[in-house]
């Protein structure tokens, strides 16, 4: 079961990314806790096309290096510059100031297929 806080106004991937209604993407509280202190992020440039379920970046912590998987197909509209300089924001505020990218997408944000709602993510076996 996913530990840590899970927000009701987000959708989730089985790989522990979240996406908000405006297309903002980050990693979950469970993910930041499992990763440990994040020390480096490799994020795409604005304008890059990303595919649902495909790797769009890399997160490196003191424990491991993990791929980031895009919850939707679309175009990167914004990248969080603050988190590049202060990767600890991912640990401190994973659903807020620790956001990673915003993706312009035509995908429907709804549970089923690639995405889980908060209840589904809470029940996810980990």
């Amino acid at each position: 079961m996913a530990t840590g806080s899970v927000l009701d106004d987000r959708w989730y991937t089985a790989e522990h990314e979240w996406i908000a209604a405006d297309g903002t993407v980050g990693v979950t509280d469970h993910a930041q806790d499992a990763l440990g202190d994040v020390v480096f992020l490799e994020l795409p440039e604005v304008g890059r096309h990303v595919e649902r379920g495909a790797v769009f970046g890399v997160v490196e912590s003191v424990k491991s290096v993990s791929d980031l998987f895009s919850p939707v197909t679309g175009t990167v509209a914004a990248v969080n510059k603050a988190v590049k300089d202060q990767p600890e924001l991912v640990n401190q505020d994973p659903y807020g100031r620790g956001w990673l990218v915003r993706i312009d997408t035509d995908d429907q944000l709804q549970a089923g297929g690639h995405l889980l709602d908060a209840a589904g993510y809470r029940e996810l076996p980990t």
Partner: protein
Amino acid sequence: MAIGTDPRSEDRIPVIYDRSHPGRRGVRLPAPDVPPLDEAALLGPALQRTAPLGLPEVAESDVVRHYTGLSQLNYGVDTGFYPLGSCTMKYNPKVNEWVAALPGFSRVHPLQPEETIPGLLELMASMERILAEISGMDAVTLQPAAGAQGEFTGVLLMRALIRARGEERHTLIVPDSAHGTNPATAAMAGYRVAVVPSNARGGVDLAALKGLLNSDTAGLMLTNPNTLGLFEDEILEIAEAVHAAGGLLYYDGANANAILGEVRPGDMGFDVVHLNLHKTFSTPHGGGGPGSGPVGVKAVLEPFLPGPRLQRDASGRLTWDHQRPQSIGKVRSYYGNVGIVLRALAYILSHGPEGLRDVAHTAVLNANYLRARLADRYPTRYDRSVMHELVLTLAGQKVRGASALDVAKRLIDYGVYPPTVYFPLVVKEALMVEPTETESKETLDRFADTLAAIDREIEEAPELLHDAPHATPVRRLNEAEAARRPRIRWAPPADPSGGPAAP
């Protein structure tokens, strides 16, 4: 050395500049008896240095005491127990060092004519033959200088054979529990990496593997026993499936300590194997190396081995054969880390075939003894007996308030070198243990008692874990800050009075 007594240092290891004093020097040279050169005229002003060098100004005794002091801060396998034995350091028997230091070996030069070193060439040929026998292979190269380079060499050999067959295959399969070097090696050799998941018993999921195999499969890289210390008991079926798809089997020899004299990679169906002499065969590593990663192959891969190769001429004399048209080329200057090969050969010959089998038996027995002693507090993820190592999951401790990292750091206070944590990734709060064959029952018992004591401390005195280590020259390092904003260069203090000379 009195750490922390330097008023300028707070919890920091001294640097040689701390002892610097203007004008002090180790050697005073006489004034030159030839006219000095005019540097400015010779070099021109652009190449002339104007600022002082900023080198430490110290006497010989300062240098000796500083570096001897640093050496005394070391923890080594000659001073205490390493619970992740061969991965970090297995005990290095001193007879190995005696052999390698013999002048006939230590004072030869790689460019000296081969007819002047027939004894050394004979020993290298013996080592090739012995490693081939141990691994069940037909030919061995001693050239690769480390395990990872051995892996890279092995994968290049596979690629060369596949190309020579006129085939195009682009994917290498690795298990999800694999060493990180496996996918890295595959990627360096230009392969796509496909990951095969573990099954419920911690081994390769055979059905999933079969689903991944196709005409694009170059091969499978496998460690057996795997990083969880679990033997892949379906290895013959795995090998058959990979070969049926036209792929090759690569054996990562990192865990060969567990199988010496009992089972051979060649008999399990592997086509290529690397052996870490610095792990299995007790030579130094972990900063004290260099390493050595010989690669063994089945006959079909022999033409591609790095050159030159040892060959016997008509008179029975060993010479280097440089005519290797299909060779992948050299992977290391000269002939590899020969001094390490000699140490490993000394280790093998001092044990003999039965002794090597005892090494594996004792290593496996020790690991299972620790598993049984630790099971009530520190379970393993899979309820199976293990081979040479075990991976404890500290998920229970984490819930109670102490992470695997806390426990590892606390081990230091008890005089134990902390083993690898958080690997392999398939185990939560992982802590790896590999006692090896060299440790006594008393040492193992002390380690198990220590882990039990630390487990009790989680409730009794949690700050002891969170703040550990307590008795070391530096306290717990801020790993995140060190990775985010590393400070890797010493700079002089702002106030130079009483401090070292400013550069």
